[in-house]
């Protein structure tokens, strides 16, 4: 989180040395879309480029229940029968964004956008509910970490690193849009953007506890529970690219 804030401000700072008509204006924007609820600062880099830096989150928004996952009722028993365990899902993104609007026209609002979303790799949170009672006391061993349920609920997240890593994702973005992030003629402006983030290969992650009590996020795969591997293979086909549709209201500060 700290790194995302710094990187956002660093982007604004770098534009100090970009030349004329830099930081002559600054606007603040509030947005909503498939990239979550966000807040941004934007400043012009000349007449054809605006830099946008901000932060967005969508944790808990939109709910969907995924059925079809079965888990063994007694995970340590080789002869255990399996039981259906639904997964309640919702958006889970929580990241900063550094984006550049490139306007072919010095006066019109149509633009191309390039940049990146950076921060937590998760994009969907999933809760496996009605877990069998065995999972409250024992758990699945994932590389020496114990993944257990709490009161019958196992919290997981679908996460993808983009070009980053396990704990900090960097998801490149390209798109098009309408409206200027910093409108020199009007105090208030409205923007619409449509694009796609590259997420890379998605995986299902959960918190596990080592023998010494250390908590780490570990990846659940088909090696641990076959059906999770089957579900993730399907998800991975569609989750490498995240469609991003957003609307934003900007207010020019100066």
């Amino acid at each position, binding site marked *: 989180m700290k790194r995302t804030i*710094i990187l956002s*401000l660093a982007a*604004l*700072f770098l534009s100090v040395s970009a030349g004329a008509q830099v930081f002559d204006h600054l606007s603040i924007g509030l947005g909503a879309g498939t990239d979550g609820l966000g807040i941004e600062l934007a400043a012009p880099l000349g007449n054809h480029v605006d830099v946008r830096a901000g932060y967005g989150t969508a944790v808990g928004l939109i709910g969907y229940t995924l059925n079809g996952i079965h888990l063994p009722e007694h*995970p*340590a028993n080789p002869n*255990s029968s399996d039981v259906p365990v639904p997964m309640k899902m919702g958006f889970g993104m929580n990241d900063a964004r550094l984006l550049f609007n490139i306007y072919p026209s010095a006066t019109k609002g149509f633009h191309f956008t390039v940049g990146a979303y950076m921060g937590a790799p998760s994009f969907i949170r999933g809760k496996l509910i009605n877990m069998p009672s065995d999972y409250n006391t024992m758990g699945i061993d994932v590389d020496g970490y114990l993944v257990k349920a709490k009161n019958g609920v196992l919290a997981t997240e679908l996460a993808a690193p983009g070009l980053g890593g396990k704990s900090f994702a960097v998801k490149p973005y390209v798109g098009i849009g309408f409206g200027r992030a910093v409108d020199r003629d009007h105090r208030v402006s409205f923007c619409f953007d449509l694009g796609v983030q590259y997420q890379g290969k998605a995986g299902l992650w959960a918190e596990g506890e080592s023998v010494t*009590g250390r908590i780490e996020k570990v990846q659940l795969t088909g090696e641990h529970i076959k059906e999770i591997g089957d579900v993730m293979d399907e998800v991975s086909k569609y989750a490498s690219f995240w469609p991003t549709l957003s609307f934003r209201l900007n207010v020019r500060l100066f």
Partner: protein
Amino acid sequence: MKKILLAATAVALLPLLFACNKNNGGDTRFEDPRFVQYAGQLIPCSDPTPTKTVLIETPENTLHSIELTESGVYAVGTLTEGRLSYKTGTYSVDGQAYNLAGYGTLRFDNSSTGEVDVLIDRPGQEAEIMRANFNRAKGSDQLYRGWTVDKTRVTIKGWTTASADFQGCNFYDIAKFIRDNGHDVPDDITPGMALSSISFTGTEKILFAYTDGTGDAGEFRFNGSSFTYRWDDEKMGFTFLTDQATVEYMDGKCILTISASIQDSTTSGSVTFVLSPMA
């Protein structure tokens, strides 16, 4: 002015970029145990010397050995009708006198390895002298000490690889857990078999001391991160534990993992002890 303010803010917040410092556990080192210079093993000589020596032997039992560990845990091995058993407890040292709580006092020259005359003074009994070989412990590794068990993690391969954590270590509860999950473990483990400590000595002895004052002892061979061990008596130990084990140090603890398997079964797994050092 606006540019200067923005630049100053960015620079001021730069240290936060490097403030995230993940603690990876570091390099664990323990202080030497308090009895490292007194630890060793006493084995009664098979042929007594002709001067003032009496074997500690009755028709019912024979003294087999006395283990004196680096952390002040002792184990007295006794052969009874061919069956070896151990009594365990704690001891303290005053010069050349070893006070074994619940057993008695031993006095002998502990300055070096060799044959010694041991004066054994037990409550309610006449003091006796025993000729014995004293093997002084060579303290060359921080593993050689007593350890208390904070937690035990049992991992078994069932429908998936599953684990359960237990506070301390009670082998009866562990065997019951394995059995309740569909694996065939013999039910000859009594409820009292809870570990009070595990000791490794510089005489290459491994000692399990139980809360009921009994124990299991054996020999081990250690190569720095893994070891094999063999109980002194084949009836000792637990059928689901193999003789293969690994040792690592993490987060101020010793992590001892013994491979587990069930005879005549495909069941496999491990038992991991999270150990804290005894002084």
